[in-house]
């Protein structure tokens, strides 16, 4: 069925495609939807996409270089459920992208936005109506009447969630009560949507296993150095003293009391250490074993039952609360609540503990970390600029930019308005002398950050801060493409395709006679570029009032800067803006932006990439978030007090 097509044949394909789908699709079927998966398979994949889209959009097809690379069955086979689910996620990603009020899922095949394959579906055809309805279902799966309740479809599987290097460090430090350099000794993990804690990719590899062993040796040595304090030999037989240490150290590292069987295994380890040396060698080996045991390395989220959906054990709930909210193991108070039977399974008890944890210093740091990873600022400390173009971009200025954003986030969330709206539009920030100079406000007199109102014409909230603007820019010039893509991807959760195989992917060199906007105009004059840049540039050019390190500017190369742009909404309205501050204020009323913020926080707090099954839960949270005036602390507290925070589907229930 699959064959390679040349561009010349495209016109014919379009006709064949339309004829094929118009003949097969059932009109009445469009009203029926038991689940997004059912609708996709019966009304979208089989009658429309398999013949119209997947003939080019597959691994050997001429559209294989696009983001829409669909999985197709081998000849004479039917498509598997796994491949259907994969394709549905691809479709969902594309459907989320707005172009002039239309989902890209529609805008492409009807040719409203340049489509390499031309117009393959006619406006108003049954195929288009099926895609329209699919996009609507993906945005709100509750449209399907027989869809299960949100909290039933969105139960996470029973899992082991490996600690991140930084969580591992805080865990060891909490157990030892002294600082230890751990995180830098473990290889960095793959980031998913910018987040370093995605459970699906946090594994233990050959490389990290050895790194854990090296950390184990350090911890063993630290314990031995404080032997009399940590594993005292008073009032006990040598082996009993060792057992006492094993129990107490394991309880700290495992976040629960070890079982008798676990202690027995540990004592075997102790015996070998003791046999080959002294008491201290046995204790050292115990510490090494405990610190790299799977019970330590993984946050256990297995649940209390081995079959079906069950509630996490009380120790697991305490662990989950603590790492989610503070990036550290449960403190003594939380452990005490956990020890009290089923208390933490109660939403109000959980909420009360969460309120305490979120406001603690660790809770504040965790919130800041979320924002840093969400905005992609993780690598800011390694940012380099062309010092010829920006001689004032010093290491101290760069570090001040990062500190400013961190201080701002903590202050907004915990000490001031507390809302997403304020994060995106607050008229103030925190500046020292170098930053004050950059922003054009009066210097506070020193390197310390002091709250200051910034010029309202150019500054509103976090996306107009120098940290974001400098990161999303080139080394020697601004970066309209980076900035447009940043807003689409990080702020609106619309993942864009990579550049296609086109002739020139070059940043136009600086030209003293032109503005950046003029130089980048090629994007819109070449159709192959325009199909994506029509999504990116109208937003990115709106940031042209900032240079490559985030300074405001009215002119560039002696010519006035044009920072007009527009933002496409899913509601069909394009809203004009001029400059980053106006855009930021516009985003505070964007439905997609709020839904995206909740999505991003869900990714971070669950360590999980959402699928269509998570959409209705995210939508519900977004409604509550909006009803609470976008209060961020409330969003977090509601999430940890929800039923699904403590429910998992066991291996045998999957």
């Amino acid at each position: 069925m699959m064959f390679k097509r040349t561009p010349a044949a495209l016109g014919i394909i379009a006709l064949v495609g339309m004829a094929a789908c118009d003949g097969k699709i059932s009109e009445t079927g469009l009203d029926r939807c038991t689940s997004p998966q059912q609708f996709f398979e019966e009304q979208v994949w089989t009658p429309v996409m398999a013949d119209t889209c997947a003939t080019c959009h597959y691994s050997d097809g001429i559209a294989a270089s696009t983001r829409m690379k669909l999985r197709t069955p081998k000849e004479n086979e039917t498509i598997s459920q796994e491949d259907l689910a994969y394709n549905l996620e691809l479709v969902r990603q594309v459907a989320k992208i707005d172009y002039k009020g239309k989902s890209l899922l529609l805008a492409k095949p009807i040719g409203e936005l340049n489509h390499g394959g031309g117009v393959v579906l006619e406006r108003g055809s049954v195929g288009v109506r099926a895609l329209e309805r699919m996009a609507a279902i993906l945005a709100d799966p509750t449209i399907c009447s027989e869809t299960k309740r949100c909290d039933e479809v969105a139960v996470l599987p029973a899992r082991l969630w490996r600690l991140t290097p930084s969580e591992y460090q805080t865990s060891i430090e909490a157990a030892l009560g002294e600082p230890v350099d751990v995180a830098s000794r473990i290889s960095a993990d793959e980031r998913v949507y910018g987040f370093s804690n995605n459970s699906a990719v946090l594994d233990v590899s050959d490389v990290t296993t050895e790194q854990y062993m090296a950390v184990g040796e350090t911890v063993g040595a630290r314990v031995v150095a404080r032997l009399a304090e940590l594993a005292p030999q008073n009032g006990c037989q040598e082996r009993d003293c060792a057992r006492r240490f094993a129990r107490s150290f394991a309880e700290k590292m495992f976040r629960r009391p070890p079982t008798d069987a676990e202690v027995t295994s540990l004592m075997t380890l102790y015996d070998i250490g003791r046999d080959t040396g002294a008491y201290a060698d046995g204790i050292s080996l115990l510490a090494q074993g405990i610190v790299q045991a799977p019970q330590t390395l993984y946050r256990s989220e297995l649940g209390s039952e081995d079959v079906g959906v069950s509630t996490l054990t009380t120790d697991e709930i305490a662990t989950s609360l603590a790492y989610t909210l503070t990036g550290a193991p449960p403190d003594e108070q939380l452990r005490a609540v956990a020890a009290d039977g089923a208390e933490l399974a109660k939403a109000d008890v959980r909420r009360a503990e969460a309120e305490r944890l979120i406001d603690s210093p660790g809770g504040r740091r965790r919130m800041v970390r979320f924002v840093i990873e969400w905005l992609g600022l993780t690598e800011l400390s390694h940012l380099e600029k062309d010092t010829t173009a920006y001689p004032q971009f010093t290491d101290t200025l760069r570090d001040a930019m990062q500190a400013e954003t961190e201080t701002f986030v903590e202050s907004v969330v915990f000490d001031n308005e507390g809302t997403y709206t304020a994060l995106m539009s607050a008229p103030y920030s925190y500046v020292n002398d170098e930053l004050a100079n950059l922003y054009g406000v009066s210097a506070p007199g020193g390197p310390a950050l002091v709250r200051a109102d910034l010029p309202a014409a150019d500054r509103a909230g976090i996306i107009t801060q120098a940290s974001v603007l400098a990161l999303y820019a080139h080394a020697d010039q601004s970066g309209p493409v980076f900035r447009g893509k940043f807003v689409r991807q990080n702020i609106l959760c619309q993942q864009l395709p990579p550049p296609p195989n086109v002739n020139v992917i070059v940043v136009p060199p600086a030209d003293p006679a032109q503005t950046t906007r003029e130089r980048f105009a090629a994007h819109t004059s070449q159709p192959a570029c325009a199909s994506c840049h029509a999504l990116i540039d109208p937003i990115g050019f709106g940031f042209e009032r900032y240079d490559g390190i985030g300074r405001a500017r009215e002119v560039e190369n002696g010519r006035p800067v044009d920072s007009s742009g527009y933002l496409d909404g899913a509601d069909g309205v394009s809203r004009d803006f001029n400059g980053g501050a106006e855009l930021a204020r516009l985003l505070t009323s964007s439905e997609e932006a709020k839904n995206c913020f909740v999505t991003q926080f869900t990714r971070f707090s669950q360590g999980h990439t959402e699928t269509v099954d998570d959409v209705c839960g995210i939508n519900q949270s977004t409604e509550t978030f909006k009803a609470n005036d976008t209060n961020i602390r409330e969003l977090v507290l509601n999430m940890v007090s929800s039923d699904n925070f403590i429910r998992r589907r066991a291996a045998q229930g999957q």
Partner: protein
Amino acid sequence: MRRKPSRRSFLKTMGSVSLALPFARLLESSIVHAQSARPRRLLILMSPHGNLINFWRPQAVGTDFNIDYANSMLGPLQPFKNKIVVLDGVDYKVLYEKATTGHDYGHCTFLTGTAPAPRGSEVYPTGPSIDQVVGEHLAGICPRDTLSLGVFRLGGTTNANSMIFNASGGRVQSLIDPAAIYPMLFDGVVPPGGGTTPPDPAATAESRRKLALVTYLNGEANRLRPRLAGLERQKLEHHIEALAAIERRLGGPKSGSSAGASCDPGLISGGSLDPRAVDNIPALVDLQFDIIAQTFACDLTRVISFQFLQGGDPAPMPWIGLTGDMHDGLAHLASGTNAAAMKLIQLQRWYTTKVAELFARLDAIQDPQGGTVLDNTVVLWGNELGDPSMHSSINIPMIMAGGGAGAFVTGRHIRYSTSAEPRCSGVYGNCPTTDPFRDQTAHNQVLTSIAQMFGIEVNHFGDEKYTGTAPGLMS
């Protein structure tokens, strides 16, 4: 935010400690029983930012080629001209025919030969890299199947800037900190020359403890296994396999049968350096190369990969006077003989100089079975791009070197195509004829050749569309 590099010379200290350690007898006996065949090794190198074909391509083809001309990117390899094969006209066909071009895909496809697919925010190759496959094929010969090293200023935290992937599609992290790598590799390794001391009881105790530790960890991990399914179980099984590999290593010999007289890790000296600081890059490269040389000399593995930074990294190279942005300020602007092109030549010549220095280290080590380590190694040196200003997947600079103990004849310039037009990037519509690349060799064919050199009987590597070996390469 940057840590200041310390001047403490940890490696020297550690080296002298390991000199005194035992296992000499073990090693000695394994040398006595060593097979007489020369050990065939694999070394993979990758440097970023693409090339300019007119300054990379040697003059003349065949054995009388010339790399010693003005502004030749390969010039610094002149002393090893007879030990290299320049593969001219190799494309990432799988990218321009089945995926997309760009830095992100070049890294992933270089050694996997697959068309990486985007999923969510990430890119995923669909098969393992050649080093992992060869390593698994040679499993058990040395303490380690493979070793992945690199200098990664930006940490190497995405699939898109990584090149090593295991059979289950997982990214294999490259080790970047020599101070951590050194003890991991060399603790317990004894130079064959100094092997007369009797086994040290403390070391025996240490190895018993380590073994007990791994046995304990394995038992605990297995306890959790039945409670997991699907991806969750796969991840735990991966962990269990990693523990099993360590267990095997602890129980087996500390070196392979080709540890020779040059095995002396104590010779490596250097300070503890921040592996993410730009200014440390040259010193980090030197240390990693010392480690590569000693790892082969002591026969700790037969397969090593090394990645110089990553595409898209704007890091300047102040040590050769290149300031500014190496990515868009240089690689993206290089064309013809413009100023950026001249700088790109300078940049690539630095990488070539470093590769030549590594070759010199390897060529100075004699294998006990004959030949130098360089002679006995299959070296592949690649890049994530061809012409960088277009993110081109055409004319990827690929060099093979060493010869792999007779696996291929060196001292040649093989040119696959004369028709390819470098100023078009791979979409047929943008190029002069419908398929100007038909004579170009798919890089999969180079990977297939390498697999066959190690006795892996396959007719394709990575994507199944690209079959056969690289024409004229193998002996």
